[in-house]
């Protein structure tokens, strides 16, 4: 019972950057500063949690039914609700009831993140490393609890597609070759038209090969939860086509040993043409249909309300979800949990009225409940002035940010004046010539402190380690960027994809939808893309039908008069 309290007190004792350790160590410890020892204590639990996630992260479809996922989700819900009033953001003291964790895996995601956080989250699933092709060919079953079975069905889909493609590709060749092989002596000689047809078959097959590779067999950009309906339909169509051609071929040509070889060649050419048309249909269905905008999707991030609008064409819900995600990573500013809540000082005034300390003394329970009820009633009657405090707190914060920003800009400008690019005519001894990395390190020291303070104030310090700042500085020096260009990355919160991959790019998202995800988009469809910390709520609206009418304006009809006093004689 005393232990959590002691831990809280301990971390308050750790220096919060007030004395000046050597600069490099301070910055190296930037991400994981005072709470590092607490994190170590809880690391085992966190890695368990992450491992559980990685198991079902292969599918991005929400199933409410699997045991392990439900258990994990319940645990997460519980932890999340507790961490809300816990230690988010500022370093304030909260006295928790005994037995509950002081910092759980959700709240540590707040400010100082562990450097090793990236290692314990398993982002990549087995399938994404090994499978090189299809994302969404025919799925036989959707058994979510068996991820091995899922990999199997993905591979099965790929295999089916490849088999069908090979069949379709080799059939015309078979049509052409079989008569030659079986009854060559009886065949009528064919001559020039046949040769022309051979060439056309060859080139059409080549184009078909390249086209179907481009359309079907490239590395997918996402794993979809359900079968991609159009691809399945196209595969069925191709299969039927090929089978019906084989039937006709078998009956009319093989059985009767047709001697007109030109007819056979034309038959084969017609099959290739039909396949090309099916490929054309595939291009239209898979690529073109979605390009013409039909719907406007509004994506709102649940955590902080950042929203964007996108125009899409006819897509199924799962494809629209992938589209939204592709745009999310470069449009939405990065999710910063430290910026979410109102500062403690604003809300705590309200709470200070009725903080209840339960120290486990049984005989005083009656008194305490009576007292707490009275305190709560008194607090409710008290006038709520928290909006005032919020306003002043915000103004103060704004002022502080601007002051730090000014210092940072000046420091960086000054630092950049210390180096310049080596010109040919400069005579310098080799010891003084530096490569970009060394140049970056040389000028970094003078701006490091200002940078650290600024990042602290804007609560961005988990996103930029010293190494990343140095790398960015090296990059800017190499490309002759000005200080302002260097600072662009830090002064505004950029989109998620800008930050270091390992930390922020998580690939698994859960698609939550009331309608089946292979349904097409319609007006009013709402679906949610969930991550652990937040979710994107996407709603659909149909683009209105525009009635455009024409009005002809004669250029000579533009006439004007002066607004003067008219004078009329009477």
């Amino acid at each position, binding site marked *: 019972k005393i232990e959590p309290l002691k831990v809280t007190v301990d971390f308050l004792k750790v220096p919060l950057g007030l004395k000046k350790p050597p600069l490099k160590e301070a910055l190296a410890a930037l991400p994981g500063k005072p709470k590092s020892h607490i994190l170590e204590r809880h690391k085992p639990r966190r890695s368990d949690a992450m491992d559980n996630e990685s198991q079902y992260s292969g599918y991005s479809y929400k199933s409410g039914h699997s045991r392990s996922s439900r258990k994990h989700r319940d645990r997460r819900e519980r932890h999340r609700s507790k961490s809300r009033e816990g230690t988010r953001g500022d370093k304030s003291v909260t006295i928790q009831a005994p037995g509950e964790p002081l910092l759980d895996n959700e709240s540590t995601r707040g400010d100082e993140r562990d450097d090793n956080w990236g290692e314990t989250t398993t982002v990549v699933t087995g399938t994404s490393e090994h499978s090189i092709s299809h994302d969404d060919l025919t799925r036989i079953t959707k058994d979510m609890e068996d991820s091995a079975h899922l990999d199997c069905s993905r591979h099965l889909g790929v295999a089916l597609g490849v088999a069908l493609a090979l069949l379709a590709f080799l059939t015309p060749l078979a049509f052409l070759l079989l008569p030659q092989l079986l009854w060559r002596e009886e065949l009528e000689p064919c001559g020039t038209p046949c040769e022309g047809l051979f060439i056309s078959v060859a080139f059409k097959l080549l184009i078909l090969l390249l086209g179907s590779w481009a359309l079907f067999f490239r590395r997918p950009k996402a794993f979809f939860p359900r079968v991609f309906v159009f691809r399945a339909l196209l595969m069925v169509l191709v299969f039927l086509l090929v089978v019906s051609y084989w039937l006709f071929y078998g009956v009319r040509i093989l059985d009767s040993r047709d001697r007109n070889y030109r007819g056979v060649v034309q038959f084969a050419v017609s099959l290739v043409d039909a396949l090309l048309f099916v490929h054309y249909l595939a291009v239209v269905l898979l690529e073109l249909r979605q390009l013409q905008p039909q719907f406007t999707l509004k994506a709102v991030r649940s955590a902080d309300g950042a929203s964007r609008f996108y125009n899409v064409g006819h897509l199924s819900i799962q494809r629209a979800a992938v589209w939204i995600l592709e745009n999310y990573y470069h449009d939405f500013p990065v999710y910063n949990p430290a910026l979410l809540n109102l500062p403690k000082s604003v809300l705590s005034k309200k709470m200070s009225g009725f903080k209840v300390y339960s120290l486990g003394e049984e005989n005083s329970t009656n008194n305490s409940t009576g007292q707490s009820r009275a305190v709560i009633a008194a607090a409710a009657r008290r006038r709520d002035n928290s909006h005032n405090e919020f306003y002043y707190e915000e103004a103060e914060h704004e002022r502080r940010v601007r002051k730090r920003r000014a210092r940072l800009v000046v420091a960086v400008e000054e630092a950049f004046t210390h180096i310049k690019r080596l010109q040919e005519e400069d005579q310098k001894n080799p010891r003084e010539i530096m490569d970009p990395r060394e140049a970056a390190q040389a000028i970094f020291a003078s701006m490091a402190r200002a940078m650290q303070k600024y990042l602290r104030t804007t609560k961005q310090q988990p996103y930029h380690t010293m190494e990343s700042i140095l790398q960015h500085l090296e990059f800017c020096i190499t490309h002759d960027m000005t200080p302002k260009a260097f600072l662009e990355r830090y002064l505004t919160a950029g989109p998620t994809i800008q930050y270091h991959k390992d930390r922020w790019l998580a690939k698994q998202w859960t698609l939550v939808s009331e309608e089946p995800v292979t349904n097409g988009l319609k007006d009013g469809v709402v679906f949610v893309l969930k991550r652990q910390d937040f979710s994107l709520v996407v709603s659909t609206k149909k683009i209105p039908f525009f009635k455009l009418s024409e009005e002809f304006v004669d250029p000579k009809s533009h006439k004007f008069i002066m*607004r*003067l*006093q*008219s*004078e*009329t*004689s*009477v």
Partner: protein
Amino acid sequence: SYLISFSFQQRIEIHKLRQGDNLILGFSIGGGIDQDPTQNPFSEDKTDKGIYVTRVTAGGPAEVAGLQIGDKIMQVNGWDMTMVTHDQARKRLTKRNEEVVRLLVTRQSLQKAVQQSMMS
């Protein structure tokens, strides 16, 4: 301090002159609520959208009756002229069945004369 405004108004009776098929009065008007008041050279207050006399033909009925250039016409035969469009004003003055028009005008020179006499 108080502002006392005197409106000095004069009643003028004009007998229309017949010229062929028309009855003319012998002056020109400017102003109206549909006109630009800032262009009026005769008004003291440049937001005044009233009807002003802009020209008086020499020897015409208006000059004979005592109408002067720069007068603001307040009423014509009892009809108010301070809030009319230019065209409405013209129509009120040129009614075919009226041979006599009685105008109520106000004049700046009149005002100034009285003010000067009061101050001295």
